[in-house]
């Protein structure tokens, strides 16, 4: 018995080390995914990194209680998406308050290189026009080339539901971009 008690701290330490190494591996694998999900909502690199970092901290706090490690990415995506939406609402409230004090300043920061081109700005406008149920599947399908099955796994939805949502989202995007980019329709 004493032998097991003496060995207990070592075994616990081994489990903790194993969990830390597993989290480290998932952090490296999923950092771009979390950042892109946050960026698709916030459009600002600093805010997106802050939100993705917050999501990883929350994920690490609850990592030991996560039974299915395979669903970590799906869990992280949903957590990041919710945190990004919360940050976006807070930013909008702050921007509206600032706009009351200083109306001549632009309320949207377009200094990020990703938004520099006019084409990207138009695509973002079309994405923003989508309802939330269509936006996240479209963003996830555009990030890292996820297919329908992977998007369904990330969102915890049936593949048929994701397929129909992606179809509707793409149709709306095409309709929006047809008016936004008339030059591309004539080619």
């Amino acid at each position: 018995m004493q032998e097991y008690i003496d060995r207990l701290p070592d075994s616990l330490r081994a489990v903790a080390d194993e969990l830390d190494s597993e989290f480290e591996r998932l952090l490296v694998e999923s950092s771009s995914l979390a950042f892109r999900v946050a960026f698709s909502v916030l459009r600002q690199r600093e805010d997106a990194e802050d939100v993705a970092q917050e999501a990883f901290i929350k994920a690490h706090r609850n990592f030991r209680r996560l039974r299915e490690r395979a669903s970590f990415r799906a869990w992280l995506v949903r957590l990041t998406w919710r945190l990004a939406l919360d940050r976006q609402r807070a930013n909008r409230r702050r921007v509206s308050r600032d706009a009351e004090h200083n109306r001549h300043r632009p309320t949207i920061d377009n200094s990020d290189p990703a938004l520099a081109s006019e084409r990207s700005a138009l695509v973002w406008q079309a994405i923003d026009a989508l309802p939330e149920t269509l936006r996240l599947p479209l963003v996830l399908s555009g990030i890292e080339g996820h297919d329908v099955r992977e998007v369904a796994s990330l969102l915890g939805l049936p593949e048929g539901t994701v397929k129909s949502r992606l179809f509707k989202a793409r149709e709306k995007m095409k309709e929006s971009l047809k008016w936004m980019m008339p030059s591309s329709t004539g080619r």
Partner: protein
Amino acid sequence: MDDAELDRALKATLSVSPSPEFVAKVRTAVAADVSVPSMSRWLVPAVAVALVGVLAIALTNPDPRPAPQTDMRPGRFAGVDIVLPSAAASRPKARPIDPVPVARNPARHAHIRHPARRDERAFEVIFSPSDAEAYRRLFSSVGSMPYELSGEVIAEDNAIAAIDFAPIVIEPQRDFSLDKGVFQ
């Protein structure tokens, strides 16, 4: 716009990458979060919220009572007037609140007694004037008698000199059969 063009536009738009030091920043933040005890994450804000709440209540609802007196003489403490028995005896008693309206004719409502004074009423027995003197003598003699009322004492103190009995007449029994009509 066809599907291929839309895919290219989406890929170009969404292919943003975090800064190279992003992973390192996350590692540092996670390590800093681990060093903080888990209880302090909610205990410190909870204590702060509780203190703010107590202060807000104290500031918005000041105590309307006057400040407690510093006079520590016997019978006077923290604004409460404690009356000692000697002082209470010399002080006139406060009249109890009368549930009956004050504006009334005292002569007309003399029979109405206050409920609190109901217990103070003496027990009253009404005798006929002819028996009053006899009862008065009886009670006065009983009051002066010793408490142990033995048979001898009662016999000695019996002041009745003579007892007059009515004459006893013994008659033959009547025949009740003659009274049938009366009970039927």
